[in-house]
């Protein structure tokens, strides 16, 4: 619940280790998975995702108490910060794409989606892919995604519907194929 998260966030900011642990357990896994998925193809994505999420939490500690009190939706706030970190890192990655090409060919590690959805999601157009990741990996509602991206809820819902349509089409068995 956002209200509980806000209390935990304030307690963590005040130095409560138990609150910090609870907040970490509640949000860090999905944030890490989101950053990792957004960084897909980067050689050091897994390590970067861990570091990025930790940095997001550390930045909360450096906020003024008034700024912490002003955070209403903790999940959306943390996701917005993690997304920004991933986008910045991805831009840096693109500048070194040639050098990383060899690394990107490595297996992506433990994160694999069974039955081919993994690659299908990865091949979606970027705006659709981001909505799918924010909704299903970060676990946000459309309202929260709107807070994170700054785009209208209706636009996001439309993109999500388009993404699902593309995935469904790709999953349709080819005519004449046997089950």
């Amino acid at each position, binding site marked *: 619940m956002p209200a509980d998260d806000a209390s935990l966030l304030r307690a*963590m*900011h*005040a*130095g*409560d*280790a138990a609150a*910090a*642990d609870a907040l*970490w*357990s509640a949000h*860090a*896994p*999905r944030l*890490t*998975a989101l950053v*990792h*998925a957004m960084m897909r193809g980067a050689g050091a994505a897994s390590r970067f*995702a*861990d570091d990025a999420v*930790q940095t997001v*939490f*550390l930045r909360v*500690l450096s906020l003024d108490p008034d700024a912490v009190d002003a955070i209403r939706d903790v999940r959306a706030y943390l996701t917005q910060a993690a997304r920004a970190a991933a986008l910045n890192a991805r831009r840096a990655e693109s500048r070194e794409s040639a050098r990383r090409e060899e690394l990107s060919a490595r297996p992506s590690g*433990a*994160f694999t*989606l*069974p*039955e*081919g*959805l*993994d690659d299908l*999601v990865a091949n979606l157009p970027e705006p659709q892919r981001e909505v*799918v990741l924010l*909704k*299903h*990996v*970060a*676990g946000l509602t459309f309202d929260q995604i709107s807070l994170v991206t700054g785009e209208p809820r209706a636009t996001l819902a439309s993109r999500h519907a388009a993404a*699902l349509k593309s*995935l*469904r*089409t790709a*999953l*349709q068995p080819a005519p004449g194929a046997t089950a």
Partner: protein
Amino acid sequence: MTTPDDLTPALDRWGDHLASAAARPMPSELAAAVSRAGRARNHRRWAAPAWAAAAIIALATVAVTFPNQAPRPASALQPLSLAALTRQASDAQGDINAVEFPDAPDSARVRPEEVISRFPPLASR
């Protein structure tokens, strides 16, 4: 095989799978930072009262050590009598009479007695 009909739950399960695979204990660096934040907050909480207490103690020490230097309350001030006021006015008049302006021209000179005569003492009004 994932079919189009169960795509949304499959994506949700995918997200759950990624999150559970990414779960890690809270890093020790973050735990240390939280601890530091708590100590800093406690320091801020007690710093201001400590300074205020030190200031109060210092003022009290000064007041006890130098009691005659402390300002007297307004109630301790006694009003001057009319005789005392008259005496002070007379002294002031003597001071004025003693003032000389040797460089001033005669036409510009005004004798102090003339000035004082225009402003009789309060007691005579």
